[in-house]
């Protein structure tokens, strides 16, 4: 019959509890925590790298043709996100950021959607060139 | 004379118990029970026996203090006991027949489906 924690238990009973009073006092997440996704559409260049690296496929993109160019909408569905931060790391322009905000409990799944829209101006129409192939290549890389 | 009786009945009883304890054949165990029975019957008779006594046939008017006779009660007891012993043996033998039919053996070591 050994009670190795007896002393500690009795000592702790008279100490202040180590519980964090969370809902009353908001708590900062630690440095480097990957929480809620923040998307800066103004920085985005619609390169699509993030979609390529996203494992669960939580990023969707819709492109609408409007007068000025393409209306690009990026939708991040956090209900499907693993918060791996690969998209942010790969984004060449720093348009995606994983904040320290962890308040991700919602009753309506729509609240989990982060989306941003920007209009990517269509480039001025290039003169028609005899060689088609390089132009196609250029277009592709733009897309 | 009477001592021989006692010795004989003790031998019979002990022999009977010996057979019950050591013999594995159920038939022999029943013979052992019979031996014990006979030993006890002999004991009863011997207890009632008075050397030189007459047969115990009297009416109350004939009974006198000096009349010397064999105790009649043990004889009655012996008769009862013999009858009961015979019944028990008959019962046991009928069981043995049934057991032989059902188990195919009379070995006490094998007739032990109920144990533990």
């Amino acid at each position, binding site marked *: 019959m050994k009670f190795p924690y007896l002393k500690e238990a009795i000592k702790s009973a008279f100490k202040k509890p180590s519980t964090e009073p*969370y809902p009353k006092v908001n708590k900062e997440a630690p440095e480097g925590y990957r929480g809620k996704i923040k998307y800066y559409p103004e920085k985005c260049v619609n390169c699509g790298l993030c979609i390529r690296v996203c494992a*669960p496929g939580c990023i969707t993109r819709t492109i609408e043709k409007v007068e000025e160019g393409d209306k690009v909408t990026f939708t991040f569905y956090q*209900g499907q996100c693993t918060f791996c931060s690969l998209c942010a790391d790969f984004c060449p322009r720093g348009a995606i950021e994983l904040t320290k905000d962890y*308040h*991700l*409990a*919602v*009753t309506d*799944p729509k609240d989990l959607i982060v989306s941003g829209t920007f209009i990517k101006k269509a480039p001025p129409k290039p003169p028609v060139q005899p060689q088609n192939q390089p132009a196609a290549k250029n277009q592709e890389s733009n897309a | 004379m009477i001592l021989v009786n006692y010795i004989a009945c003790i031998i019979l009883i002990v022999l009977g118990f010996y057979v019950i304890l050591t013999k594995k054949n159920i038939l022999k165990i029943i013979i052992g029970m019979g031996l014990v029975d006979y030993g006890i019957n002999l004991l009863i008779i011997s207890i009632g026996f008075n050397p030189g006594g007459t047969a115990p046939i009297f009416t109350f008017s004939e009974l006198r203090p000096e009349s010397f006779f064999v105790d009649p009660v043990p004889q009655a007891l012996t008769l009862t006991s013999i009858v009961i012993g015979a019944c028990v043996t008959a019962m046991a033998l009928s069981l043995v027949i049934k057991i032989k039919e059902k188990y195919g053996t009379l070995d006490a070591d094998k007739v032990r489906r109920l144990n533990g």
Partner: protein
Amino acid sequence: MLKELIAKSFEKSPWLFHLNTGSCNGCDIEIVSVITPRYDAERMGFKLTGTPRHADIVLVTGPITSQSKDRLIRTLAQVPDPKVVVAIGSCPRSTNVFNGSYSVEGPLDKYVPIDVSVAGCPPKPEAIIDGLAKAIEILKEKRRAMK
């Protein structure tokens, strides 16, 4: 008066039942950490029970594998009313990285309505506590609707 007491008690003593439907254990560990001294969900009356019959709130983790689908449906049916289903982590909400796998039959809302979902992979314990707080509100409403 008894009714008021009962209604009041519903927000003070929600009991949890934890259901793992093929989770990677990340969320499970976070659920356990909610009841550790640091977060101590018991101070708000939360208690992990061992059987669905005692539960008010069911915490579902994992992307509903085909092995666990029938078990999930059966177990959820066995919880007495009123009950609240909370999806912990992204998996039950949307099957997360397992999306499209041959053995995953999620997401959860194909089978039962999800009342609260806590996103995260895994969610932080604080987020789970937030989710539970929301679940209590829903539990109260369901109780009111029941009567």
